[in-house]
């Protein structure tokens, strides 16, 4: 099973020049620095810093194996086009990108009002789709089957299934959630695009489970220190 890891900074180099745990691909998202996984879910509505500038700044300082990193971009940033972002990422020899912080949790009136930016999962998948056309490899965070199918419809074949917001879930709900996630993953796998399904093992929901997600092609861990 493949392993991905959400990080807020580049891991320090070892003495022989290799980065620690170099077999695990990193989703680099510096805007999450100092946030718990629960807070990280809300990051799209937390105007703490400039998410994309922090990302590019971190990538500029990156030494070693750049293609082990997936750039987590704020796709709703009104001041950077996908073309410009893709160009900068290529200059930095980073070839993978994902949508984080993300609007996958927007619902109700928030969806409607944020569309004025525009921001939301549909805009993010369109953004990622364009980045694919520009030569990047997109990974899409999705929350539901609807979102997963929308991502696939945009030609995005690497899907990171988010289990949802962790608050108020009891044990029974977690069991039910696990089954639901598996069903979503299996449905998405039916696609002729043969997608890779990654599961985001949210630490505030699945802190102890280890082998329950064999339906996924890979696991994503949250490795940001609050």
């Amino acid at each position, binding site marked *: 099973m493949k392993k991905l890891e959400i990080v807020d900074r580049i891991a320090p180099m070892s003495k022989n020049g290799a980065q620690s745990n170099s077999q695990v691909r990193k989703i680099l998202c510096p805007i999450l620095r100092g946030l718990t996984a629960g807070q990280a879910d809300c990051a799209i509505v937390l105007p703490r810093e400039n998410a994309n500038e922090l990302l590019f700044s971190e990538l500029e300082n990156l030494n070693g194996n750049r293609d082990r990193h997936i750039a987590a971009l704020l796709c709703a*940033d009104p001041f950077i086009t996908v073309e410009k972002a893709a160009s900068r990422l290529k200059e930095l020899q980073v070839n993978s990108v994902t949508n984080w912080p993300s609007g996958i*949790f927007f619902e109700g009136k928030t969806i409607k009002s944020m569309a*004025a930016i525009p921001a939301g999962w549909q805009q993010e998948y369109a953004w990622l789709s364009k980045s694919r056309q520009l030569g990047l490899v997109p990974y899409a965070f999705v929350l539901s089957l609807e979102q997963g199918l929308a991502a696939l419809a945009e030609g995005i074949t690497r899907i990171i299934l988010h289990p949802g917001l962790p*608050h108020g879930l009891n044990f029974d709900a977690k069991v039910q959630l696990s089954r639901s996630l598996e069903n979503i993953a299996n449905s998405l796998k039916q696609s002729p695009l043969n997608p890779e399904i990654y599961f985001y093992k949210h630490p505030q929901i699945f802190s102890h489970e280890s082998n329950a997600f064999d339906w996924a092609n890979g696991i994503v861990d949250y490795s940001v220190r609050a």
Partner: protein
Amino acid sequence: MNNTQVTDDRFLFGAAVGTGMTAMAAERGGADFLLILNAGRLRLQGASSLSCYLPLRSSNDWVIEIAEKEVLNRCSLPVFMGASVCDPSSSVDSIVGKAIDAGFSGMVNFPSAWAIDGRLRLALEAEELGFGRECALIEEAAKAGLSTLAYVTNMQDAVRMSDAGAEMLCVVVGFTAGPTGVETSLSFEAVAETVDDTLRQVPKHVRTLVEGGPITTPEDALAVSRLCRVGGYIAGSTIDRLPLEETIEQVVKSYKVISQLVTPEFGVPAYHKFDGQSDAISEIRSQAETAAHSRIPVLITGSSGTGKTLLAQQIHSMGAFSARNPVIINCNSLVAEDAPEFLFGRAAGHRSRGSAASGGVLERTGHTTLILDEVGNLDAVTQGMLLEFIDTGTVQRLGSSMACQMDTRIISTSNQNLAKMVDCGSFRQDLFYRLTAHHIAIPALAERTEDIVPLAEALLLETEKRRGMRLSNSSYTALLAYSWPGNVRELRNAIMRAAATANGKLLIAKDFAFIGQPITKLESAGKSTGNKLAANIPIQTSNKDESMSERDWIAAALRRHRYRKNDTASELGITPRTLYNKIKKYGLN
């Protein structure tokens, strides 16, 4: 002083801004307090106000930076910091401390969690990054002595904020709709209902305001305030983005339109505009060309409607300043007491304390021509001021000690005999001499009847080019038979009227039956042929009779030869004596 408190009971107006420019403008406009919000800055960067929620920059650091650099040292109004509680590493104490250090006099919760709903809102609250923390911020700010204002959307939040010590509550009825990209289906009545529901349990001493939704104009705010319990309005995009975008759009359109208007106006050869074939007009054109190539003042005289202003514009268009439009002042319309200010402008504070400065029309005459239309109508005071301007070439605003130098060409027109006015003391002699370095007199149309036909043809072509209208022989006769006391202007009007009312493309004498009739009579006499000259001249009015008669045949030949009788007689194959008899017979004199 930025520590002024908002305490009185007037209808409050708060301006939510994001730049020093908008803050200062709002202060000048009479706002009661300012809110510095990251949304205000984002709007003026072309982004949606909603972008204020996105991690594009540290909201608090940005607001403090804007306020310190652009607002707090320039505005004397109370300034509220739009403070965010989104960063778990910043305590509410430290946020309040930063606001006080920067010099804010108040604090408002912005961006607030009110705009987020569903499970994401629950997550924000669970992570202590939501409205609960905003209440703690307002409470801390109140304790620290800052003025406090809270955005709320429902009764529960309003009560929580009131309990936290908020002095003012602003009920938000959604983000502002309209060109912002946000839609709303709320009516003012629904807004009023929401406001009253929200404020139902809020103590009366708490000042209440409203913002957003369908309220986009002062009239909207007034309408809502009359329907519910609100004592004020906070404007964001309705005072910066919407009016600014509209103004810029209109100004840009004006620049584009003006540039389109100037080109054809002065791109056409001037000679083509002052039509006429008479010797008098040829001489005038020659004089105009001479005058155009010099810079000396020109006085053009002639009775009303002879084309004095047109000739002045043509002299300008042939001269050194043709790249710019001339400045034309109609001296008829200048009111004596207003004329000096209109011409020279005024310095700030000249009219009354605090009154703004205003530029006069003469300030626009640099490197162009000033055309003083009907200069004989200037009053004595204005004549004196104008004399000073002509002598020195400088313009000094009333009440100002500063003068600016103009490089101006002067052309004047008059339908009065200025020399006689000088003799009787109603026009300054010194001004008269300065204006008349070159004098061009345009004769009345009645004194150059040979110009009537070519002028009529040119005017018809000018006004009815698309329709391809023509003048018939009988219409020539009608036009030539009239004395045209209103000169070319009257002829133009007659051509336009006939063209507008004619049945076909060929204008016949009947179409000009109105010529010379009093206006009151004309209105009720559409079919009348009561032309004073029509009675003397046998005008053929039916289409059937439009075939060339001997009279028309002779008249056309006379026109072709500019009324030179010998040449006309030669062409017609008759003796000059016979021609004279025919002219007498047909009334072609």
